[in-house]
């Protein structure tokens, strides 16, 4: 659609720009992954330190028993609230996907009746990134 008569110099310049964009995307992807998994490693280290602080003091069974013995009503309520919020969020997310799946086909069909050349974003029927577009 955007085809034009480009000279060799134009094509070389465009190729250089496209390679830079590609390399920038590659670097961004590497940095993003490094920060994400670096964060996970950092968190794993602190989790290990928390567990390691109990080494030599108690057995796993002791820890389990002490844990149960020390759990108060307010702790249980806090965990229930946090867990409930997560479950609520996940159920809402699923409901949203179901609704998109139910309505998207109809919207597409109705819009196509008005604009037969209607173009699409090519997401999945549940409104998620198309697997072919994933990194």
């Amino acid at each position, binding site marked *: *659609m*955007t085809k034009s008569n480009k000279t060799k110099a*134009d094509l070389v*310049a*465009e190729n*250089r*720009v496209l390679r*830079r*964009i590609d*390399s*920038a*995307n590659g*670097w*961004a992807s590497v*940095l*993003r992954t490094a*920060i*994400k998994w670096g*964060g*996970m490693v950092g*968190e794993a280290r*602190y*989790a290990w330190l*928390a*567990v390691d*602080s*109990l080494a030599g*003091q*108690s057995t796993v069974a*002791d*820890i389990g028993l*002490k*844990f149960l013995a*020390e*759990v108060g009503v307010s*702790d249980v309520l806090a965990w229930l609230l*946090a867990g409930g919020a*997560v479950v609520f*969020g996940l159920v809402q*997310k699923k409901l*949203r996907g179901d609704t998109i799946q139910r309505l998207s086909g109809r919207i597409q069909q109705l*819009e196509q009746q*008005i*604009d037969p*050349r209607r*173009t*699409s*974003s*090519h*997401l999945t029927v549940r*409104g998620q*990134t*198309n697997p072919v*577009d*994933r*990194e």
Partner: protein
Amino acid sequence: MQAMLALSSVISLAGLAWLLLWLWRDYCIDAYRQRLFALRDELFDLASASAHGLSFPSPAYAQLRATLNGLIRFSSKVDLVAIGILSLRMRGMAYRPAAEFDARWARNLGRLDAEGGARLESLRQRMHLATAHFAIVSVPHLLVLGVPILLAFVGAVLVRAVLHSAVRAVPARLSALRARMESMYDAAAFDEGLSAA
């Protein structure tokens, strides 16, 4: 008490990691797409009303819709890091598709009346605003790193401007940088939107 603290810390850390590194980003992508879909619907309604010289066959409609489609499709690849690295890698380079995109946009808006042009320009600005908002808030763990980088970048721009005795040119430079990045992203999204069509 120590056992309780250790175990709840481990579980909380795991939950926080899951929330920040996966769930939050997914939510932001969905919210960003929702905003873009709302803009695309608004554009559709404008074209459907066939007012201000805008209709479905209008090149301005096709251009903006393809750009929105491209952004919706590849929103999972947009964030502060990608924009930062791209702007660094593209510094000093002429990106012809961006200039072509702007020229085509101006030409296409010229075919509409003043109000039609203003409405489409407003839609495009809101698209940029949504993209900037998404790029920043979608990566909370990067925000911690991104703010110092951004401050360093702004500081470097300011120092350079002062060194060149061009303090008055700073707003223009920042504005030009913003316009350049917007055009570049729009052109890339437009191409992706066309390839998706």
